[in-house]
């Protein structure tokens, strides 16, 4: 009965803040694992960049100085499986419900792709659809973006803005507020919660609900560690991860709505766009160019698009 006495450590980390929805869900996960395992797993969490950047944290989980990392597949894990970047393609996700279905259905596929790199993926979490915040005018149709300098986090977003007729820049996140204030950029895009947490709405009047992309994170476990767990503990870990993901998906929706409402109360003009399919039509060539990168890309995109 010696195996039963062994305490497994489960050191987890997210590069996001403890106070955000992903951070709160991670704390929920850690508490839940500690409780349901009756102390046989000792789970702990680190938040923010305490242990390093997201890329470093992922590598730590891969090499065993962490047992689990919370990370975004298209940014941090694409280094191992490039086609995960397809999750960044604009207008590939329809709405929140569709997004959650996509995340749940992709779990096995992402785990399969990352297995040779020593990861197991579980518990996909929605970080909110992203919209466009513009200083001077609302965006009803793509033509409204013409001539605007828009900020996005990476080159895919720059390409998206250019497909829509704007120009794109990748200003540093910490410089966005000043850049909006001084007019170096005309607008930016992010989820309502991200915008509100940085108070960008103080420097822009219009929030247009463009629903172009939604960010996501998964729990990535070190595969060797996971496979060495007794099967009852494996079940507990999976169960807790799914519960935490469901919890996060719920509180994130609330947080997004709350931030949206606060911005409206502070005088930001929020609008729906005239026709989302018009935006999707203009960015459709991006889907094709991603497909053309190789059969494994086409295959992964097919799998996303097959999910109803």
């Amino acid at each position, binding site marked *: 009965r010696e195996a039963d006495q062994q305490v497994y450590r489960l050191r987890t980390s997210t590069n996001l803040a403890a106070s955000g929805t992903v951070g709160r869900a991670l704390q929920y996960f850690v508490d839940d694992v500690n409780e349901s395992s009756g102390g046989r797993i000792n789970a702990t969490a680190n938040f923010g960049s305490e242990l390093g950047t997201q890329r470093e944290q992922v590598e730590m989980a891969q090499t065993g100085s962490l047992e689990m990392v919370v990370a975004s597949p298209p940014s941090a894990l*694409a*280094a191992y499986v490039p086609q995960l970047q397809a999750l960044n393609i604009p207008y590939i996700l329809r709405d929140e419900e569709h997004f959650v279905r996509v995340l749940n259905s992709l779990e096995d596929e992402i785990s399969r792709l990352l297995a040779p790199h020593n990861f197991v993926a579980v518990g996909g979490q929605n970080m909110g659809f992203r919209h466009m915040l513009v200083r001077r005018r609302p965006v009803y149709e793509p033509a409204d973006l013409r001539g605007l300098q828009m900020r996005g986090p990476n080159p895919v977003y720059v390409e998206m803005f250019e497909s829509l007729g704007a120009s794109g*820049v*990748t200003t540093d996140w910490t410089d966005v507020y000043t850049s909006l204030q001084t007019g170096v950029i005309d607008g930016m895009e992010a989820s309502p919660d991200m915008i509100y947490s940085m108070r960008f709405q103080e420097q822009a009047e219009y929030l247009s609900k463009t629903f172009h992309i939604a960010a996501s994170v998964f729990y990535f476990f070190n595969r060797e560690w996971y496979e060495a767990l007794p099967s009852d503990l494996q079940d507990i870990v999976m169960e807790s991860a799914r519960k935490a993901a469901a919890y996060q998906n719920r509180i994130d929706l609330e947080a997004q709505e709350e931030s949206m409402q606060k911005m409206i109360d502070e005088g930001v003009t929020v609008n729906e766009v005239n026709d989302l399919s018009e935006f999707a039509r203009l960015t459709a060539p991006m889907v094709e160019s991603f497909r053309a990168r190789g059969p494994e890309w086409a295959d992964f995109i097919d799998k996303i698009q097959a999910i109803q």
Partner: protein
Amino acid sequence: MSRAFFSTVYTVVDRVRMTAVILVFGFIITIGAVQIFMRYTPGLNPWSWVSEIMRYLNIWVVMLSASIGVKYGTHLKMDYLLYKIVPERAIRIILPLTRIMIVLALCLLIYYGVQRTSANLRTVIHSLPISIAWFYAAIPLGGALILMEYLLIFIHGTHPYHVEQKLEV
């Protein structure tokens, strides 16, 4: 093997290292400048790979130059107090100990540097289809050059090939 032979090998390594630093550092600042120019020129779009490549190439600059820093003795250190307060006899024990620790630590850095480099052969960087291992390799290689410089200093007492030249800080 004669001393002259080692001296020649060292000179070649030193030249290659200096040239690499100048070229890579020069390249970094050039693409950085071009990037600003493109950003403020209407109709031109900045390259998306610049900031990532700059960051990664800087690792080469730092690791290679760290070994040049050993040669010139520019690394932060404090050895004057030791000689002031510790008796000669104790220093004769401490000195070899610190040297062994330095050599072991650097060997570890090189070994695990090689290990991480080869483990990352199939890891691609974000903006270009090249492996991150190209940049990880700077750590073991830089570590080996640092080790080489320290071994030369430990064996000869001072750096044998370092012509005294005041380096401004």
